[in-house]
């Protein structure tokens, strides 16, 4: 009779990496569904193209480095879906392929794959195309266009390596009321017009594919946090510090700076706080570090939005947070049991 020899513990929890990642993907499906409903075929094509690119790139790097396939851990799927959600719905598909490839190749595989990456791969991909294709990434189309389920936005099917065509004519045909072609953040920055909280919550604004409805993202995040697939402290810290910073600025100059609710609900802050900043591999592990990291991202986002050249600051705020994560971890090591000051009995 042969005996199995193992070391303790002999009982382990059923939760594993693919389960966690799969639930993140599942929780993103409502967000994806809403954006497809809003933007139709173009959004769907963008989501599918980028996710497929990420998966293929991941698999190719597995093969090139003679590693077993890591498609099954679902992390590349998350990267693909998140990346697509941060891009404008009219983004040309071939540029999406570039973004997806860069996200996995430069953002993840180069560092050694899942867990070893320093930066959120999806944001690396987005940062790359933001620098490479500044016009395409700021070209917006209206939601609920009349023909959204029967035809693509003309830019979507731009031939590879070609510049996308202008969408102004196409937008005019869509019989959409009051489309300004600018995001709420850009309108605030350049025209000092703030969108209403109600529009921002429900998604009746111009935005990236998955950033329209702050409420929907928040609900999905609550589900993830309740199932303990996400660290709730990070979004709380990000949103809390962003709100506090915005409130202080508004206190200083109410005429110029918008209300904290506008800051919280506009742009990519909600998606970033709930899904990007919480990326496990690139956020701190220590209890104190998590709060510092989240608070830092919140403050930086507001600072970049208010004083930077860009209208949106979430991406760079999170990337800076990612870069500082090892540093934060190092200086916030938990105090070992038995080294704290004695409690009074």
């Amino acid at each position, binding site marked *: 009779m042969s005996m199995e020899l193992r*070391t303790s513990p002999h009982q*382990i929890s059923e939760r594993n990496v693919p*389960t966690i990642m799969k639930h993140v993907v599942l929780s993103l499906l409502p967000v994806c569904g809403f954006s497809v409903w809003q933007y139709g075929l173009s959004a769907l094509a963008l989501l599918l193209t980028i996710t497929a690119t990420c998966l293929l790139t991941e698999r190719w790097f597995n093969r090139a480095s003679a590693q077993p396939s890591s498609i099954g851990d679902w992390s590349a799927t998350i990267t693909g879906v998140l990346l697509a959600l941060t891009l404008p719905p009219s983004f040309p598909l071939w540029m999406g392929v570039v973004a997806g490839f860069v996200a996995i190749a430069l953002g993840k595989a180069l560092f050694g794959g899942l867990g070893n990456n320093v930066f959120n791969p999806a944001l690396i991909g987005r940062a790359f195309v933001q620098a490479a294709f500044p016009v395409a990434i700021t070209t917006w189309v209206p939601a609920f266009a009349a023909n959204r389920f029967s035809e693509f936005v003309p830019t979507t099917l731009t031939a590879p390596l070609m510049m996308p065509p202008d969408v102004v004519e196409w937008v005019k045909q869509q019989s959409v009321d009051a489309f300004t072609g600018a995001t709420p953040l850009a309108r605030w920055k350049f025209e000092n017009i703030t969108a209403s909280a109600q529009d921002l919550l429900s998604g009746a604004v111009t935005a990236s594919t998955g950033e329209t409805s702050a409420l929907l993202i928040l609900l999905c995040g609550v589900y993830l946090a309740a199932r303990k697939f996400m660290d709730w402290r990070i979004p709380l810290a990000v949103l809390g510090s962003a709100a506090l910073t915005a409130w202080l600025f508004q206190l200083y100059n109410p005429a110029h700076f918008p209300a904290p609710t506008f800051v919280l609900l506009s742009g990519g802050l909600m998606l970033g706080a709930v899904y990007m900043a919480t990326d496990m591999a690139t956020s701190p*592990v220590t209890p104190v570090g998590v709060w510092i990291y989240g608070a830092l991202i919140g403050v930086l986002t507001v600072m970049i939005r208010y004083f930077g050249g860009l209208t949106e600051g979430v991406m760079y705020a999170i990337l800076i947070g990612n870069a500082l994560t090892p540093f934060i971890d190092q200086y916030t090591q938990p105090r070992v049991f038995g080294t704290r000051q*004695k409690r009074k009995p």
Partner: protein
Amino acid sequence: MRLPFFNRTATFEHGIHPAYHKETGSLPIRRLPFAPRLIVPLSQHIGKPAVCCVSVGQEVLRGQVIATADGFVSLPVHAPATGVVEAIGFMPSASGKMVDSITIRVYQADPQSVMVSAPRDVESLDKKALLAAIQDTGISGLGGATFPAHVKLSVPPDVTIDTLVVNGAECEPFLTCDHRIMVERTQDLIRGIGYAMKVSGAPRAIIGVEDNKPDAIAAIQAALPADSTIQVKAIETKYPQGAEETLIYALLGREVPAGQRPAAVGVLVNNVMTLAYLGRLLPAGEGLVERVLTVAGPAVEKPGNYIVPIGTPLRFLLEQVGAASSAKEIILGGPMMGMTISSLDVPVTKGTSGVLAFGKSQLPQEEARVYACIKCGECVNVCPKFLNPSQLGLLAAKREYAEMAERYNLDRCFECGCCSYVCPSHIPLVQQFRIAKAINREKAKS
């Protein structure tokens, strides 16, 4: 008036809630028959091995001393059955090493009552005589630590113990023998606590019991007089509630300073099983010849708590409960901190609190693929010692063993297994830490 918010069960910070599998907790303790041969190791405790004082071919009586204590930090060994010494020599042990053992062929026709005893009036003994009497019982820590009971109970003159903490947490999944002892041998336990308080000078005792054992709490409560210096306290059911330092924190809010013994905060911790046997054997003047242990696990047909003679080979034990043929993995102790054994010829010893048998298909780790650390921080959130297992694991992979000890307090880890339990990447963290500690120990020697 206490606000409901503050009225929560005493507990420690961090820890985990594994599946408890405590089904055997409702089954009364039963006695197993004697195996034809008992294998009694000379060293079943921490300290110097006992010295054999019988010879091959000699007949021994149940309860007779067959090996004497070698100095203070040592324990005598008593014959667990009436029979004849068949061999004295190396036999397999749980750790895989061959250890000096006395093999006794049991006289099957003998009634096997304890023949050697010296009843004594415990109340009349002074501290020194009491300690000697405790040593004579051969009792070691029966929770699994196997530290000689009398050594643990002897308090240096410059130390004051204000509280005796009695460990009835039994936080390991599957194990329920402490639970049954508290329910069925409550009087033994209370008597034993009295002796331990007397010898250690502790003016009060607190029995900490996890709140998944309400019948044990009720049984003790009912047996205690109203003005007793002994009290019983329910604590949260959470692993590792029964670790000394977490238990002290849960019951008294005191943190044992890192690297020091509980005596540093005026506390002495003893397991309920140890004290219950002390309360039973000390007045009777008998030695420890058997113990109660839990036999359970998915491969066991008749799980339960059994009185098993010391030295019973596991093969015999598992045959009795209908597990020997289907079992693939046998664990001594609990699933979180116990060890697997390589041979069924290993005997039950004083420190065996449980024997768990798993069949092949019931092993969850079998197909568990190891992923890279995704830095989810779960391990940091559960470590009862507030260590950073994630960082320790990354350093272990790079073989930075010295840094693990110097900067990340590796030596504070007591291998409770919480980090490995929660790790979604299935990284064998505890095993990595064991290896790192062993390598550091070897380096320190040379």
